[in-house]
């Protein structure tokens, strides 16, 4: 078209004698007659195809009145269907357009083998379907809000829970490593099965009676060694293990719950090699002093470890001393030694480490037996410590002397926000002293004194002070947002008063 229109122009230009008006007029007139000539030609070239469709359509309508164009799926739709059907053999996803990808993903079956899907599909919707299909209860927030992470973490946990050393092929788990290495941040395994021994019942009875043969027994009851798996998971941050058996029922045996020395050593090596680990929990696993020390020694100077939870074990003073050493050789933020057998010396060593520590913010010594000596040492340590915010000393046989010292700490310390002294024998006088200490404190938000023989009056007054502190903290949290804070802050305090 354009060629035909432009051709007359050069001829007009080549004639310089003509006036400009003439030129334009000829140009226009030249182009006008051409256009109608061209358009029919283009129209003529089309008819064969359009005429055909017309013809066919009409015939089909005549034969089958129910047939309609709408029912015939689009080619893309057909392709997508095909892709979905053959996804296992020929996974095509990345090459598709985004909307087609979405369609494919929404139709894929959650039963597809992980070898195909693991590193190919990132879509949360697909993994959500996978999760909901496998588990009735899904709490995504625990897994960093990612369904994919949740799927892989729980899948791996499942495998580990049902792994029986000696009978199950280790490749079952190790094969998973390349698939899930990028998606597992957290491993929460609450049971490790011991190896199965066929002639177990008679022997087990004999050996359970004689403790002297425990060593021999241990070597045969080793659990799965996590070393290879953890080394493969490059983003592992949280490790939560329980060396025990769930739902054993009437098959109970003591050695089902054995955390052997070999297990301990291999675990220690594993956590030492895992440099991304931030949270390590080993609970309800009968960890005694020696094992705790082995574990803690491997955790010394760990670059990123923040939380250590060894609650519900059998750790005594020596283990506590090891933990105290760890406090000064790492950046630990949370230490949980609840329900162990820590006594006064262990608490004293912990207090010594705490006095100069600048990273620990939470210490839990619930259900130990540190008594007044340990309590006093901890209170002294809190005079110099400027970091600890949460302290749990519930059920530690504490009494008045500790309370008096803690009251002094309360009046000076400005970092503590939560103290738990429940289930102790503070006594009436101790309660009064704590109340005095509370009167000077403006930062404490929680102070648990239940069942600690404190007078109801002082407990109530302490509660009032806590309420005021809480209100102030709430206002403080609102402050940066509201510039009217002084007025609003006054209101509630007056009403409370």
């Amino acid at each position, binding site marked *: 078209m354009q060629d035909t229109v432009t051709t007359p122009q050069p001829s007009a230009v080549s004639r310089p004698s003509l*006036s400009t008006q003439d030129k334009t007029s000829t140009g226009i007139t030249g182009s006008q007659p051409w256009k109608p000539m061209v358009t029919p030609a283009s129209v003529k070239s089309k008819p064969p195809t359009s005429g055909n469709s017309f013809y066919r359509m009409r015939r089909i309508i005549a034969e089958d009145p129910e047939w309609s164009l709408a029912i015939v799926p689009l080619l893309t739709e057909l392709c997508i269907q095909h892709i979905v059907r053959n996804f296992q053999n020929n996974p095509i996803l990345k090459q598709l357009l985004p909307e087609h990808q979405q369609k494919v993903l929404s139709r894929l079956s959650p039963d597809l083998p992980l070898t195909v899907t693991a590193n190919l599909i990132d879509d949360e919707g697909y993994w959500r379907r996978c999760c909901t299909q496998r588990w009735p209860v899904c709490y995504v927030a625990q897994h960093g809000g990612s369904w994919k992470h949740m799927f892989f973490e729980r899948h791996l946990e499942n495998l580990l829970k049902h792994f029986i050393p000696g009978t199950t092929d280790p490749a079952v788990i190790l094969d998973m490593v390349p698939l899930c290495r990028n998606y597992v941040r957290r491993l929460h395994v609450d049971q490790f099965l011991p190896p199965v021994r066929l002639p177990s019942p008679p022997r087990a009875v004999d050996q359970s009676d004689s403790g002297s043969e425990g060593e021999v027994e241990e070597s045969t009851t080793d659990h799965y060694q996590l070393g290879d798996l953890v080394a493969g998971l490059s983003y592992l941050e949280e490790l939560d293990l329980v060396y025990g058996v769930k739902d054993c029922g009437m098959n109970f045996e003591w050695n089902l719950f054995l955390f052997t020395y070999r297990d301990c050593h291999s675990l220690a090596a594993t956590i030492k090699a895992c440099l991304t680990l931030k949270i390590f929990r080993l609970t309800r696993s009968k960890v005694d002093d020696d094992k705790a020390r082995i574990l803690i020694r491997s955790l010394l100077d760990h670059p990123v470890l923040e939380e250590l939870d060894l609650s519900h074990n059998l750790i005594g003073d020596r283990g506590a001393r090891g933990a105290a050493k760890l406090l000064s050789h790492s950046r630990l933020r949370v230490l949980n030694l609840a329900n162990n057998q820590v006594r006064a010396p262990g608490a004293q060593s912990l207090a010594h480490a705490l006095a100069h520590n600048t990273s620990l913010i939470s210490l839990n010594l*619930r*259900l130990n*037996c540190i008594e007044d000596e340990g309590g006093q040492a901890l209170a002294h340590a809190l005079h110099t410590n400027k970091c600890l915010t949460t302290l749990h000393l*519930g*059920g530690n*046989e504490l009494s008045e002397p500790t309370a008096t010292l803690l009251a002094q700490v309360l009046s000076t310390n400005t970092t503590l926000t939560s103290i738990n002294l*429940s*289930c102790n024998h503070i006594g009436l006088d101790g309660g009064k002293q704590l109340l005095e200490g509370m009167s000077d404190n403006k930062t404490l938000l929680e102070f*648990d004194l*239940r*069942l600690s023989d404190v007078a109801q009056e002082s407990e109530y007054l302490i509660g009032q002070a806590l*309420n005021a502190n*809480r*209100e102030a903290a*709430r206002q403080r949290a609102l402050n940066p947002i509201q510039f009217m804070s002084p007025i609003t802050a006054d*209101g*509630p305090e007056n*009403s*409370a008063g």
Partner: protein
Amino acid sequence: MTTVPQKLAKLLLCGTELVTNIQVATDTREINRRVEEEEIKRQRIEKLENEVKTSQDKFDEITAKWEEGKQKKIPQDLWEMLNSQQLHCAGLIEDKNKLISELQQELKTKDDQYVKDLKRQSDDICLLLERMEEQVKNVMKTFRQELHHIEKAFEVERQELLTNNKKKWERALQAHNAKELEYLMNRIKKVEDYERELNRQRIWDCEEYNMIKIKLEQDVQILEQQLQQMKATYQLNQEKLEYNFQVLKKRDEESTVIKSQQKRRINRLNDVLNNLRSKYAKQIKQFQEENQSLTLDYKRLVMQFKELQKAMRHFALIDEKKFREIWLMNEDEAKDLISRAFAVDRIIHTHHLGLPWTEPDFLFLKNVGPLSQQPQKSATQVVEEVLMQTEDEVEEAASDLASYLDLPKQVSAKTTKKILMLLCDESGFLIESKLLSLLLPLEKSECYLLRLDAIFSALGIESEDDLYKLVNFFIKYRAHHLSISQAKPPLQASVQQLSVVSEQEMDMLEEEEETLVKDREQEESLVEEGEQEESPVEQVEQEEEKESPPSPNLIHPNDVLKTLEAFVMGVNKPRELRGPVRVPKVECNDSKDSEYWLALTTVIPPTKQNLWDAFYTALQKYHLVLTQRAKLLMENEALEQQNTELQMLLQQYLDSKINSELQVPPTQVFRMPTK
């Protein structure tokens, strides 16, 4: 509303407390259990230990009895003992069994306890669940209530807002309607107006349009004409430009050709430049080498020059000597000639003229050696001399020399010395203090000498003349008669006299010189002559001292300074003019030489020469006469001799035999001419 958050917080807190109460209760129970357990454990252990002890005792007793039993021989006793032993053993076993059963009982109770605890725990868990559910329900309820309240309040607010807004809206709508109507009326009115206006405008526009059309058509025609013209000019311009373009193209070609030529030239010139540069570099090197060689040459030349100078000095000395020798030779010759002339003159006078001859007396005839300017002695030298005189008074020979005055006539050496001593004493302030300290250890005379030297340098007295001027001034100042300027002429006269007298006395003093020279400081060879001449001066002076009348009273010491001041004021002016005069002295020397030699030529005065000339002519004439006479005499003699010879020959001829033999004898021939 402000209390709601608190209420909710309280609800939550209470709920959690309620829920955690169970945990706390369990904890306390656990603790209590632990405590009890510990207590029981302790008791049990104690009990077991006690049991162990007692059973051990019993066992020991039994074992002891076994020993006892071994010693028993009587079977009855043995049987009894065995029985008792059996009983004991049974008791022991019974105790143990009892203990075991007790422990088993305890275990059973513990099992029951465990079951109970399990039940309790399950109850607790149930309770916990219940409470949690209750809590959840409660919280849900309250939150829902709260939400409901909020919604209600919101609804009410919304309703109010709605009604308010509706009212407002209606009001605004009414106002709007009224306004709309008004606007409509206005608009209709306006539209009518505009229509009328439009019609008017249309008619007017039509007219105007026609007019403009005509005008524009005219304009179009004019413009077309202009366009044609423009086209023509355009054509013209185009042709011109084309022509120009051609020309420029040509020029461009030319310029490219020229450019290439220029480039070639540049290349060529560059080559030349490079050549020149290399040449230049070469030349620089060459010139440097040359320069080095030249500097070497120069050094050598300087050395040569120095050597030459040395040689020159040497030659100057030698020349001086030669000059002197030649001078002496010439002088001797001249004197010889003069003496011959004098002898001749005397002969002429005495022999020929018969007059008495007196020898002319000329001073310069007595001069021996070249005339040379006596160098002016420095003031210090003079002073030194003066001082030396006084010291050497003893040594002074009583030389009877002619009256020679070194100083002006009225000043004697002694007065000079006195004046100098006075000056030295009075004007000590002119000497530097350092010098004074240095002078202390020296001898008196030396001390005076150095002091005077310093004073003279301070006063600006340099030459001998100055010194004498000073002395003169002192004397005259005291006299008050003469002006300062008059001191000059006598001084000059004295110098001339000195030179003349010294020449005359040269010969006589030669012997004494040598002895005196030793005492003085050795000076350069050039000065030696002057020194030689000085030696007589002293002696003359000393002689003068004795002869001259005692000098008049010396100037009073107090006036010395005034006198000095006046002297300095007066003398400074003439001295300034003196500097440049010194140079032409050498020429003066030459003129004196020539005068000397001229004087030598005029030893014979012209009158005498005239006389000699006249005498010479007269004598010549006389000589001529005498020679003529002598010649004549000689001729005469020769003729006489010829004659005699001829006679003798004739005789001979005549006497010879040949004559006879001859046909014609010569005698006849002879006789014929003679005839």
